[in-house]
Structures are given as C-alpha cells and as structure tokens.
C-alpha cells in the first residue's frame, strides 16, 4: 500500500487465556484520521494499546503477530523508544499535577532526562502548544500548575505533551468522552488541523464523532475486524450487516 505508516498482519492479543484480538489485518496510511469503533468489549482499546505496547503492562497480557511501524517491527523495538514515536492521549485528561504547564508540555524530555537548553525548550513548548490550539490561552500563565485549566484545556495540554515528542502516530483513546460538547468540538477541529502532519487513530464510542471527523473507519466486533473502509462508505453503504446494525444503533 502506498505510504502505510502501520501495517498489521495476523495480529492476536490475549489476556491470559482470553483471546481478545483475533487475526487482525489492517493498513493505516499516512496523514489520515482513522476512527476505531465497536461495541464495548470489542477490543478496540486493546488494539491501540498494542500499538504502543501499553497492552503488555497488564499482567498476563500477551500478543503475537506482526505490527510494523514504518517498516520496523513494533514487537522487536525497545518499548520505551517505541512510545516516544507513538504518542497517546487518554480518556481522562491527566497532566502531571506537580508540574507547571510549561514543564508538562516537555515532560517527555524532562522525565527521560533528555537535556535541552532554554531556547530549545521555549521553542518546543510554543510550537507544541500552538499545534494543540492552546498557546493563546496559556501563553501568559505557563508557569502555573496544569491542573488549574478546564477539562478541555487540560486535554489539549495532554495533546501538546504528546506532540512535543514529534511522534509518527497519535493514538487517541476516547479522548473527548470526558469533555463537554464545546471542548469536544474544539478538539475535533484540532484533529482536522493535525491531520496534515500526523497520522491519527482515535477510538471512539461516539459514532457521530467518527462520522464527522475521520477519513477512514475500522469496525471491531468481539475481537475481529469486521470492516475497514472510507468513513463515507461505512456510513452510507456498509458492506457487512454487523456494521450496519451497529451504526444504526441496533446493538452495542
């Protein structure tokens, strides 16, 4: 496939004996926004957590199969280095409470002991906050603690934090589920802008959001990838009955 950032082949994931993901095959192309959706327990969150190998942090969690990030086998890479190439934003905004906004943005560098001079730090902070559409709102309070921001702003701070590491891919795990509609709309707008530079995978429960924001959609059900296609096609004429049942709200 043309420029596939992520190639998944025959991928399986387990929690102990439980077979969570069954033989997943998928190509994620560059600079696209993919929505990963499906009913609860379908494996969508497990799937993206396998991409940055957060899955294996749970005891008894195993995975097999191939996942190549820009040609490199994910499961042969150093997980710590991998996670700097793949950024993740979680459902609940989680800026580090003891750090200022400034430090939160470059937390990836600070915590990893990567040395930067003041100018580099300033640059990264400004660029990342601008890319996360948060710069204008916090430029004069960079040294305040991150937890004094509103929920939507905190989430954008987390996005800036992920972006500061210049990841190749951005994983959003229901990143707007805990936010009010206005903040959600702002972040959806942001995703649109980020698409030009990053490849984005977003897990979402909100089908309307998947329809509005994504270019392509992957529908998971009970651990299997049922259908992966252009979002337009999925929402106007899905090929599989289960997909159609799901988006019409007939289960899950």
């Amino acid at each position: 496939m043309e420029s596939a950032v992520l190639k998944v082949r025959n991928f399986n994931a387990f929690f102990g004996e439980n077979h969570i993901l069954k033989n997943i095959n998928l190509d994620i192309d560059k600079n696209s926004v993919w929505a990963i959706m499906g009913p609860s327990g379908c494996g969508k969150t497990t799937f993206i957590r396998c991409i940055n190998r957060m899955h294996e942090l749970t005891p008894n969690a195993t995975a097999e199969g191939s996942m190549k990030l820009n040609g490199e086998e994910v499961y042969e890479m150093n997980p710590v280095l991998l996670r700097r190439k793949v950024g993740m934003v979680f459902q609940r905004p989680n800026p580090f409470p003891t750090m200022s906004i400034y430090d939160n943005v470059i937390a990836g560098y600070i915590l990893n002991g990567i040395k930067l001079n003041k100018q580099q730090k300033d640059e990264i902070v400004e660029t990342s906050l601008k890319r996360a559409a948060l710069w204008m709102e916090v430029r004069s309070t960079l040294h305040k603690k991150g937890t004094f921001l509103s929920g939507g702003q905190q989430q954008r701070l987390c996005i800036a934090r992920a972006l500061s590491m210049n990841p190749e891919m951005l994983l959003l795990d229901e990143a707007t589920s805990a936010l009010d509609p206005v903040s959600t709309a702002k972040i959806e707008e942001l995703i649109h802008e980020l698409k030009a530079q990053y490849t984005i995978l977003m897990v979402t429960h909100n089908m309307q959001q998947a329809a509005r924001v994504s270019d392509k959609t992957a529908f998971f059900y009970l651990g299997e990838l049922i259908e992966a296609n252009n979002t337009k096609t999925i929402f106007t004429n899905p090929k599989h009955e289960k997909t159609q049942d799901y988006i019409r709200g007939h289960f899950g």
Partner: protein
Amino acid sequence: MNRHDSKSEIEKQIARRNRKNKRFKGVIIGATIVSTLPLLFILFYIFRQGISAINWQFLTHLPKPVGEAGGGVSNALVGSILILLVSCIIAIPVGIVIGIYLSEETKSKLAYYCRLAVDVLQGIPSIVIGIIIYEWIVRPMGGFSAFSGSVALALMMLPSIIKSTEETLKLLPESLKEASLALGVPYYKTILKVIVPTGLGGILTGVILSISRVIGETAPLLFTAFGSPFMTTDIFKPMSSLPLIIFNYATSPYEDWHQLAWGASMLLILMILILNIISKIIQRKWKVQF
C-alpha cells in the same frame, strides 16, 4: 373541604419532622461535645500544671541532684530530638520504599507476607520491642545507647509510614502512571519522578504523624536509651529523653520533681501539637488536584 383538612395534616407532619430533625441534630452535637470535653480537660490540666514549671532555666539547665532546687530538662529535650532524628533517618527511607513496593504489587506472595508482617509489627507492644532491641543491640554493643533507642522507635514508626505511603500512592489515579509510561518513561523513573512527587504531600503527612506518635513512647527507651543525667550528643552512649524524665520524676517522691514532670509533659504536648499543625499545613499546601 377535604383539601383544607389534608393541608393542615401535612403541615403538622412537616412540623413534626422538623422537630425530629432538630432533636437528632442536637443529639449528635451533644455527643460530639461530650467526647471532646475530656480531651480539652486533659490539655487544659496539663497546661495549668506545667506552665509554672516552664522558664528559661527549665529549658537550658541540666537536672540537679536530689534535694537541690531548680534544674531543667535541657538534656532530655536535646535527647528526644536527637533520638527521633536518628530513628527518622532509619525509618523514613525504608518505610517509603516498602510503601511504594506494596502500593505497586498487590498480588504477589511477597507483598502478602510483607503486609502481614507490617500489621503484626504494628500490634507488638512497645515494651516488647524495647526488650527485643535490648537483646539484639544493647547486649552485643555492650551498653545502652541512644542508637538502640532510635532503632526501637524506628521499628514503631515503620508500620504507619509504610501504611500511609501505600494508601497515598494507591489513591493516585492509574492514568498518571499511564501518562508517564506512554511518553516512553521507564517504569522506575515513572515511580520516582512522577508517582512519588505527586504523592509527597500524603507521604510527608504520614511521616509527621508517625513521629508525633513515637515522640512520647517511654517503654522502648527504658531498656535502650536508658536515660542519663548528663548532656550528651554521642548516640552510642545512653541518652536522656522527655518521656523517660517524666517517668522518672513522676514516680519519685519529690514534689519539685513532680513539677518538672508536669513541665516536661507540657513540652511534649506542645511538640505533638506543633507537629500536627505542620502536617495539616502540608496537607493543605501540597493538596494535589486531579
């Protein structure tokens, strides 16, 4: 006509309920006052008894031999502080590390036995700890010492430091760890640079509270630090301490020594009060929001 009647019926019912509410509130407030009163009486009594003993001489002079007037508790004050200092040096790092381990590992066998041990340690009577340390440290060392007293006190501080560290860290949301790990920060650094600093407020509070608990322990010091009439800062020698002095003076037949005992008691209470206030301040200032 019916509606009119039922209206006043309802009004009566509401009035009755309001009265019941007020009575219930009254009972709760009454009970609270009744249970707080003894505490206030104790504090007040100690204060009244002890305040007359406190003066500059009291704080800066050594105790005088029997029969002589005057004297102070300077060596006991210094002793208390020194012994506590050493026990902190021993107990705090060990306690925090164990607390971190227990908060992370919930299922392993080691964690289970560790928790069991901590609970048992918490229940061991202080005098028993004193005797054990006498056997293990005082005897081999050949004599009483402040150091052995510190070890005994450290053993008593450990359970509460461990427990409060574990509880504080357990309360931190999982997402905090995940956020750090997702940035490519290795596990141990996540714990040291993110989890512990975030929980520092709670950990410190636990430490200070455990100090204020052991500051007045007498039994373990009886066979370890033993006490001394001299001012010394050598921890490998026997040392005086406030609880020891209170014990000795209060059980003596001399009236003026009783006075000194009251004074020392008041000093102890003051120190405990200050420690508690400090812990409250820390709790408020270091309150971490999520």
